[in-house]
């Protein structure tokens, strides 16, 4: 199987970004920093999906990348609603804020019952479809390593309580992420439409 230069570039960029972002997320820093690096690592999965699509259109990589992008966008917007406290700042945890932060992390990690799970499965499948077992193994290992910063972040000071529009947006996003996780057909249909647009 021949691999063109753009494909090699995409795989190298995607794998390197995934590796660097995961390693940086594993360094003990502030919770917000870990979240930023995990968002970057999740974006690397989109690049890897695109690389698989470039290698072979039938690999389903484009749809995988699109679903991963949807999951990433939802998780990032949800995470933005949660404002961290300063370390050691006292305060009672609010259930909604804690749930929003946990759901954002679960989506980024690709854990059920969120849409992130299906996104990761689709990217892994596309990588295996083009015979890149090593890259798929790297992506899976990065997903497991990502649990550590997630748990550190979730165990840190509780986020500030969500009120007003932030609370409404958070509830809607949590519901959407869970609904897409339990019924991923909607997200996959959207990705199929994107695939048709990108490659008619």
């Amino acid at each position, binding site marked *: 199987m021949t691999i063109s230069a753009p494909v090699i570039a995409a795989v190298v960029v995607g794998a390197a970004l995934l590796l660097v972002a995961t390693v940086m997320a594993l360094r003990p820093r502030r919770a917000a920093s870990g979240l930023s690096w995990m968002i970057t690592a999740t974006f690397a999965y989109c690049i890897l999906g695109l690389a698989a699509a470039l290698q072979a259109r039938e690999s389903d990589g484009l749809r995988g990348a699109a679903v991963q992008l949807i999951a990433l966008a939802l998780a990032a917007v949800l995470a933005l609603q949660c404002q961290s406290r300063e370390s050691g700042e006292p305060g009672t945890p609010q259930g909604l804020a804690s749930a929003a932060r946990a759901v954002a992390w*679960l989506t980024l990690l690709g854990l059920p019952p969120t849409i992130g799970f299906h996104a990761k*499965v689709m990217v*892994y499948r596309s990588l*295996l479809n083009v015979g890149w077992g090593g890259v798929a193994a790297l992506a899976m290992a990065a*997903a497991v390593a990502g649990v550590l910063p997630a748990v550190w972040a979730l*165990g840190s000071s509780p986020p500030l309580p969500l009120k007003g529009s932030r609370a409404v947006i958070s509830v809607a996003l949590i519901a959407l992420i869970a609904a897409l996780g339990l019924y991923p*057909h909607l997200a*996959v249909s959207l990705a199929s439409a994107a695939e048709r647009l990108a490659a008619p």
Partner: protein
Amino acid sequence: MAAIQQNSLILVWLFVLPFFVAGCAALFPRFSLRFHSDAERAAMAWAPFSLAALACVMGVGLTVSLLPTALTGGRVTADYWWTQDLYHFRLQADGLSLLAVFAVYLLGFLLHLHLVGLREAGPPAEATGTVNPTGAYRAALILAAQGCAIGALLSGDLIVLVFSLESGLICLWALVSVTAPRRGLRFLVAAQAGGTLVLGGGLLMWRQVGDTSIHALPLLLLSMNPPELRMVSALILLGLLPLILGAPAHGWLVSLLPLKRNVPMVPATLLVIVGTALMLRLLPGVLVLPGLPAFAALCLVLGLFSLWWGALRAWIATDLGAFAAWLTVAQSGYLLVALAAASSPTAPPSIMQAAALQVLLAPAAILAVWSVASYVAARTGSDALPGISGMTKTMPLAGVALLVGGLSLAGAPPLAGFHVQRWLISGLFVDGRWALGVVVILADLFIAAAVLGVFRQAFLRAEPPPPSAPASPWLSGQLALLVGGIVLVGVWPGPLMRWCEVIFRTTLSLSP
């Protein structure tokens, strides 16, 4: 597009019921806290638990109603397109999955009976129904984990299995993290690594044969190349191993002991039931294949370690709760030893039947010992062995339940556990594995001695018994139910043993 078979509604109902109840358990206390007086709250606090108990009774009823189909070698299946052209949302109920689902529902029913009893017998803060949000949170998580466990047991597809399993593990992680964040972290990493390994195995199989169906697993695996076959088998089995492994994987169990009132044995027994049932379910396609001798050896070493480590720690336990926790670890060791022994090409069917029977009987016996710990703590304020003595007169039922549950775990006749040990040990001897059989018998004797030692210390010593509160009829009823059930199955094991034989002939006889 959707191929919905006749019984799918029943299956889906079975699947979603615990989730519904989990929602009720989480919602009602909060509503009651905001809108009702103390007296009303006390009344409302019954609602989630009564609903949960009702759900468990309905679940057991539905499971039993599906049994005739499953026991005649048939399968009740539901097949939805989860994503239009990617993978199916398949559910499949066969004899083995129904046995395990039955065990999960039974566990849930007794748990709720127990919680109602504790609520009644508890201190004023609990008795008046002053709702503790953390308690409601824990109750919801335990119920959600039960629902996910049932989902995993009924999964007909490896991807659905991973989805359900990981959802349940996340619920348990959240539960463990409430009191032991560091152990929770280790638990989540192990769970995520295990789930990813199973997912990797499933995806590799899909890449080779284009399907991830569990029903067709043996045939699908047979159509693969040997190196890839070994890789898929190893990934799936190594991913499931942490669920059953007692020591050190379930070390977090003991950290939950301060939460006696929330019956923390549920997570551990859930994991052991689900892990064993799933491994047995995948066994015909994976474990009996002669390509993984190292896995059987690994299972055996880990199983013997769990068995003896659990038995030794139970021997030196200083309170009834810890005693029950370490007995749970020892039981997971028995299961691993049975699975390892069953992977031998010359192993008789009785070893695998013993593992299937243990899936149902071990939780019942463990629950009996746990219930005694909780019962004693609720009545005397402590279950520390140095502080309790001479309770034969004040709590005779607790003494009987401790003896019956503990000796059943040790395989003493005429209790239910005797038949598990009889099948396992006779199978080992028939297979020519005398040394292993002797090691298992020694472990049985050791556990029996530990149980008798604890019984003597707590119930037979001459010191005056500690002052105790009146017994809740719910708790006494639960103890009587468990004792009666374990003795009844021990004396009249026919139906259950026939069920296990049918499981072997149908689900487990698919081995290539």
